[in-house]
């Protein structure tokens, strides 16, 4: 489902934040991406949903070579990818419900059905009672769950989650990961970036470890 061949990403003048990385994530696989802060986890996810172009190397996502994708094809790639951003990226001038429904409207769903599905999704993350609030009135953990609801509402084939449990206590962390496991059980390919190695012992899964943009262990 996701394949990286010798991918390097460097910003001008800096040493590469992803260096000659090769990685395969199969369809319906669940992978933790770990590593210390600055290891390049976010950068790797951004490469996968084509928010960044690799400096060199090839990236294949869902059979499509990202480096060769035209700008107009990128939106259609992204419709198959749900992303939970480290900084949530929620809109404060819209309600929680509208934030989630927005992800569906943007890809052509009508407002009514979009809101229906968004409400359903908010129920699954336990936030239907906050549907009409603006995100900024929610706690960090609640905002995190809204971000997850938005990423999953479209039932994407691939879910990329950047520190999705960073702000949650142990029991909510388990709940959120369960959402991702459920989605995985239904066939989605999931990559979860986290610097919390404790997660790995509580929820043993394949873990790819990065340091300075290089893979240091995989298994």
């Amino acid at each position, binding site marked *: 489902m996701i394949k990286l061949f010798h991918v390097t990403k460097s910003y001008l003048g800096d040493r590469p934040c992803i260096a000659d990385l090769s990685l395969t994530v199969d369809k319906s696989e669940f992978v933790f991406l770990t590593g210390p802060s600055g290891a390049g986890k976010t950068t790797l996810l951004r490469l996968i949903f084509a928010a960044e172009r690799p400096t060199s190397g090839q990236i294949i996502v869902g059979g499509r070579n990202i480096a060769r994708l035209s700008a107009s094809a990128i939106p259609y790639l992204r419709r198959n990818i749900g992303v939970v*951003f480290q900084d949530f990226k929620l809109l404060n001038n819209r309600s929680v419900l509208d934030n989630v429904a927005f992800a569906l409207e943007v890809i052509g769903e009508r407002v009514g059905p979009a809101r229906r599905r968004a409400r359903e999704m908010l129920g699954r993350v336990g936030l239907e009672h906050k549907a009409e609030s603006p995100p900024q009135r929610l706690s960090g953990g609640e905002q995190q769950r809204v971000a997850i609801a938005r990423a999953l509402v479209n039932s994407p084939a691939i879910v990329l989650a950047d520190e999705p449990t960073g702000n949650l206590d142990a029991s909510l962390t388990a709940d959120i990961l369960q959402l991702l496991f459920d989605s995985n059980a239904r066939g989605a390919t999931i990559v979860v970036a986290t610097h919390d190695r404790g997660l790995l012992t509580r929820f043993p899964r394949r873990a790819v470890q990065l340091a300075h943009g290089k893979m240091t262990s995989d298994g």
Partner: protein
Amino acid sequence: MATNRQLLRPLYFLQRAIANLVHAPLMSLVATATIALSLFVGAIFALSISGGEALLNAWGGAAHLTLYLSPAAPDEAARILAQRAAFLAGPQATVQTVTHDAALARLKHDLGDLGRALDGLEENPLSPLVEVRLPRSANAAEVRALADQFARIPEVIDVDYGRAWLDRLTSLLLALRWTAILLGVVVLAATIFLVSNTIQLTVFARREEIEIMKLCGGTDWFVRTPFLIEGALQGLAGGLIALGGVALARHLLLPKMADALAFAAGMDLPRLLPSQMLAVAGGGAALGLLGSALAVGRFLRA
């Protein structure tokens, strides 16, 4: 399902555009005011030119053409020519035949006491002629075209219509028109520049929303469309305001000006035709659309 979605799309974008306008009224007002002002200035300028044209035409009075026949031509030839001229000049023109004798009588009358000297003439040296008086509504170009037609009639040896004066007037108006077109282009470019920069600010204010749209798989057209509609609506509003301004100016200002120019009495005040009003409103919408397309295009390319 798919067609249903597409049918509902315009409505969806229109709703979004209106909601956006309501959310950021200040920026919308700036863009609208810019377009309104430039269209108002343009329309007033155009009206002034057409008013000036009408004024100059009225000044010139009714156009007057004189067709000369050869001195040897019989009076009968002049009468036949008069009929032909009346046909060519149309029913609103008045045509008069001046025979050899009448021409001589006129000359004598004009000369007064000196006219007695003409009594000794054995033979009338004057040509018979045909006078054509055109209605006031005839403009310089029409007069000239008619004069050319008359000149092609074989019996006519000369056509007198104050050619130099009419030609000068025509070229003056032509120069004015070109100046207006040139100025119009400059004002238009400045307006598009200002409007696109204003809309750029609204685009920038919504950059987070745009970013999220794109990250969720929204196409550039999805991002662009509400802005385009907003631009067109702002421009349309600007056009309508400009039309209101022109109507107001006509009511408040022009009667006073017409009074001041007493010689123009009876002249119609210049007014915008329905097609021109449509052009102002549509032009506003087009300006807004273009400004907004430039602004969003610049943002999406960055």
